[in-house]
């Protein structure tokens, strides 16, 4: 199974591009560290999104060119960023009031596992000797209106990430709205995983085989 993953379905960039299509003009958006950050590169022409970063900035712009930028203008991943016009700075409690109070429209996050009821596990693999670290993930999934997950459909070892119930420690209960993978776009519904669309060249059966819970056809 794992060998085929590099050639079948969407690349990371294509996954990010697909997510970007679903975020309406004028949304306030928080993008998680890693693949989710790519989403900003693919926002369709004419849409204006405003990016929030937990460490106190609304109106975050792209990374500065080369090794430019300032050490005190960074994002939640501690990378240097720029400012878009109309930006604002605020302290951490105000920043998470935006999150907890439901003011952020969309958050795009990575995942270890997503369960068919929308449970998300993305902060810990629960290993005995790991140093636990959670950051803002639990606040984001509890507070943001719509949680999109962007992830490879399976792990590097070919294990499904979409599951009946998460075996890893949860980040939040029933919080995920939609999952974008290399193979498909899948909604979390009261009836479970609902296929929205298949990636080009991917069959329903192919996705179902790699999903550890029933998948409702589109």
């Amino acid at each position: 199974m794992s060998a085929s993953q590099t050639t079948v379905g969407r690349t990371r960039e294509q996954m990010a591009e697909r997510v970007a299509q679903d975020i309406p003009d004028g949304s306030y958006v928080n993008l998680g560290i890693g693949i989710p950050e790519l989403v900003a590169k693919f926002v369709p022409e004419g849409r204006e999104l405003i990016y929030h970063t937990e460490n106190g900035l609304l109106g975050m712009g792209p990374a500065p060119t080369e090794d430019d930028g300032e050490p005190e203008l960074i994002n939640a991943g501690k990378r240097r960023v720029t400012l878009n016009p109309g930006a604002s700075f605020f302290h951490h409690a105000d920043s998470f009031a935006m999150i907890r109070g439901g003011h952020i429209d969309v958050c795009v996050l990575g995942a270890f596992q997503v369960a068919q009821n929308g449970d998300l596990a993305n902060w810990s693999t629960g290993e005995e000797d790991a140093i636990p670290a959670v950051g803002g993930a639990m606040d984001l999934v509890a507070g943001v209106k719509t949680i999109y997950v962007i992830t490879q459909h399976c792990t590097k070892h070919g294990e499904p990430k979409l599951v009946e119930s998460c075996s890893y420690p949860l980040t939040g209960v029933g919080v995920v709205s939609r999952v974008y993978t290399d193979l498909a776009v899948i909604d979390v519904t009261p009836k479970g995983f609902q296929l929205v669309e298949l990636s080009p060249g991917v069959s329903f059966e192919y996705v179902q085989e790699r999903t550890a819970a029933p998948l409702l056809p589109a």
Partner: protein
Amino acid sequence: MMNKVWSSAAEAVKDVSDGSTVMIGGFGDAGSPIELVHALIDQGAKDLTVVNNNTGSGEVGLAALIKAGRVAKMICSFPRTAHSEVFTELYRAGQIELELVPQGTLAERIRAGGAGIPAFYTATSVGTPLEEGKERRTFGGRDYVMEYGLPCDVSLIKAKAADRYGNLIYNKTARNFAPIMAMAAKTAIVQVAEVVPVGSIDPEHVVTPGIFVQRVVHIKAPQHESELVKQGVSYV
């Protein structure tokens, strides 16, 4: 393109529905969004629960809204006012309900409403008649009461300037309840004396980030409550 600037106060308040909880900013003459409140009177929504520190002055703004019979309940800290009998009369006649909240508890409840905090504890009002009906709990040997976060449907506030993203700056003590009322509202409507281009407010100086604001109305020369009261103006 994100543009939160609406064409008029009337348009901006058009969809306020009967039974809404409406927060109205301002403390005395400072920050009172008179024009938005008058537009709400014209619009006609009724059975409102209104949150303000007081109950208005004279027969303009909030006092006029109350006099017009649109307010079923006031949530405030100080319903007595020097220049208004409007609330007093309706209250004595049993025609308006009052929830009296200490000013700091009111502010914190509004902030909590905007910050996704359903309840918190405060020492304010412990052992007083305003503790009645509240849950008491001891932390670190001191008694506190539980208070609920207070979100709302609509906030009407006033600021000095906004850009089309809704970023706001205020004028002096007119800031008062406005930033937290913007946070607490599903729809925060702000009247500003000036609409400025995006990018012209220093990101370090923004007081209310645009994320907390849904609609901006340009009211170039806002009226002052105290002057209207002095002139004997009645908006009902």
